């Protein structure tokens, strides 16, 4: 009998050592809260801004999406800014993307009927497109949406991917946002 009494005492000693440690709040390192798009018209009228912001990441407060009205038959220089605004100071995720340009590519997909086209202005070391800087061309008056997708590790050598065609790109989607757009 004595053996087990010892054993039971030992057991409680073991289990008494279990204490629930206060978890460290994990720093969400790959969070992107904000996508800002700045459109500078070539005819030097005022800049236009598109914005997706989900300040606390997935869940919690709902994201805010701001679309815009583009001028018909106008070309814009388009600059994408990616931020993690949950951090203080705010982190520029665009830099990380820029540094890994070979592993990233943005794609732009206008909805059916929207008179719109675009071209890439920035390229990686292999001369494949990246898309932080683009040229957007708004055509005739129309209405719809523009989907911006950021793929991580796409196959940039697959058919038509470097022309901006997403179908064969593969990889994981890091950003997929639809902006409502009116062209007039």
């Amino acid at each position, binding site marked *: 009998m004595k*053996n*087990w009494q010892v*054993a*039971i005492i*030992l*057991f409680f000693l*073991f*289990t008494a050592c*279990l*204490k*629930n*440690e*206060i*978890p*460290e*709040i*994990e*720093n*969400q*390192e*790959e969070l*992107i*809260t904000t*996508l800002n798009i700045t459109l500078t018209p070539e005819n030097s009228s005022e800049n236009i801004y598109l914005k*997706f912001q*989900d300040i*606390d*990441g*997935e*869940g*919690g407060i*709902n*994201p805010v999406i701001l679309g815009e009205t583009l001028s018909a038959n106008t070309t814009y220089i388009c600059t994408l800014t990616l931020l993690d605004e949950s951090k203080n100071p705010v982190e520029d995720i665009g830099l*990380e*993307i820029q*540094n*890994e340009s070979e*592993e990233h590519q943005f794609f732009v997909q206008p909805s059916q009927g929207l008179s719109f086209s675009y071209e890439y202005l920035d390229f990686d070391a292999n001369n494949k497109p990246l898309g932080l800087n683009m040229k957007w061309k708004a055509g005739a008056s129309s209405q719809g949406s523009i989907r911006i*997708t950021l*793929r*991580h*590790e796409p*196959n940039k050598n697959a058919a038509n991917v470097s022309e901006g065609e997403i*179908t064969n790109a*593969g*990889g*994981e*989607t*890091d*950003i*997929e*946002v639809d902006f409502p757009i009116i062209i007039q």
Partner: protein
Amino acid sequence: MFFVLFYAFVNAIQGQECNIELSGTIFDKHENNALEYATIYLEEAFQGGVTDEVGNFNFSKVCPGNYHIIITHLGCETQRLYLSIKKDTSISIFMEHHDNVLDEVIISTSALESVKINAQINKEQLRESSGKNLAEITSQISGVSLIKSGGIAKPIIDGMYGNRISILNNGIVQSGQQWGLDHAPEIDPFVAQNIQVIKGASSIRYGGNNLGGVIMMNPGLPPQDPHIHGSISYVFDSNGYGNTVSSTLEQSNKFLNWRVIGTYKKRGDLKTPDYNLTNTGNREQNIAFQINKTINSALSFDAFYSLFNNQNALLRGAHIGNITDLENAFIREIPFFTEEQFTYNIAVPYQNVQHHLAKIKLKYIVSDNQYLNFTYSFQLNNREEYDVRRGGRSEKPALDLSIFQHYAEIYYKFFNNNYSFEAGIQLSASDNTNIPGTGVLPLIPNYISHNPGAFVIYNREFDKVKLDLGFRYDFKYFNVLRAVQTTIEKNIHKFQNISMDAGIEYKINPSLVLNYNTAFVFRSPEINELYSMGLHQGVSSIEVGNKDLDQEIGFKNILGLQIQAADRFSIDVSTYLQNIKNYIYLAPDKDYRLTIRGAFPVFQYKQTDAQIAGIDFMGKYQILENFEISTKYSIIRGKNKENNLWLVRMPSDNIYNRITFEGKAPGKFKDYKLSFGHQYIWKQNRFNLEEELIAPPKAYHLFETAIYSSFIWKEKELNFGLSIENLFNSTYRDYLDRLRFFSDAPGRNMRINLKYNF
């Protein structure tokens, strides 16, 4: 299920050189009758014989010396006995049900067997299945299916898996992250000498949360042999060019009986009939030590340690970011990231899992018919999951979990000729931690849990009737700390669980047995059901735990019938009906959750009333002495009674047929066994698309063939086997394989098994 215990009474009579007579009788101890057709083999002398109808055997020209004697009998594991023969000798060998003697894992009592709601994989089947993982081996048992994520497989018993079943590693409930669909049991099947599935009252001993059943991996005991023996096994798999080596060494000396088992496995990318499954390789490095010692006639001791170490690559093309990616992946013929080149490399995404289990057990025999066990075990499980990440972060785990668990049990058993009584008190305590530094919000929070429990089991045997009754009580305590935004939230959960089980077996006549089992089981929710929070990458959906969940209450009835006619024909049918009140499941939300990565479907843990019913059928017919056909057929239906929709992840109807020839081979070859198998898996037509996201795949046929034999090489036995799975290299996808969204299942695999016993 049986074990050979031998008491050798050596009667010395006079003898001469190489003219010694070795004779004896083999008995079944508890029925006290002689055993016919038991085979005896004197290894050193290459002499073999079979017992006659009164259990006698006789060797007349034995040289003096030391012999290893191998005794086998139908339904028993092959056992070895070591004997020094100097004169004419007569021995009596008693075969006894082994559980009572030393090993606690077996459920039945010495004098009686429990109501037989169980099934097993024996040593021979294990040898033939070497190279497969634990879940694949267990799925040979009727009513057990697999839920997979490519090469990672978990068992499902009667539609229950994960938190709803228990897996025992040498008598200890495996404490890993069993909630995850892609978390395989961390057990090396080479350690097993026997694997069992039990569903009756006896399963009550192993925890109260078993709505489905218990899978037991039993390592057995080192044989009673003073020499070092062992085996080396090698398995080659053509699909993935897998190489597995496992070695066992064992000895029973004056000081103690010991066994050591080491396994190393390396496999590269698997292949479907048409393309490589890039990044599906696997590594395993396992070791197990086992010792036992009889201190005196009343006290014995055994200790066990095992380390399971495993790296599993996950198909690169199955790593996706959102639902658009999932749909794209599903439409594609060949997954993204498929490489032409075969490789052994393991790249991200992959998992790295380690599981330590240490156990000590003291057995104190109080008197001839009662004993006490004290068991203590310690488990440590580390799981790291690596993902494809930005900015060089793939080097850090995206999920890093650790569990420490202590467990102690005091167990008492009393038995006599017609009844037995068992009782036990069990305490377990575990500490579950997210190792900080992943840079990702954890899927489940940190928590500690305490689970004291107690049970009683009573077995009674009448003339034709056996009766089992079991009762169990568990108290479960969770102390959860989780980070919500920037604050720490603390939650305490307490549950009281009751399990009751009653079984009756009626032997109508020697060839017809009827059994019935009824069970009432509480299962308290587990951590993932209460708290999981976040994106489930593989299925691109968000899973949300529900801390208000209550216990599930299962009420299960099993009715079984076993027919055994003239040793040539047998049927085993089992039907079950289980009603589960407060069944916990993932219910799809109406709204998608909008994030910067797109809109995700949201699933929340909710409760409903469910009903699951099924039939498991197994039949065997020995047409000729050396020619047998067998069939295994299972159907299962699961319904959510509240909305009348089908439950997800219920195995579809399936049938498995096999024909086996056994034949004599020439020369030093022993008998060979040649088999052909056919499996047909029906399409799962009973599904709810909202929960599945993508409809189940088509029905499929699979064929397989295998040949096993052995021969004597340098006086030792060498077992070998050649088997081909997916013989016709069929292209298919399985409903219960998560990779069905992304790729076809692996194609043909030719497996070579070699085992050298020394």
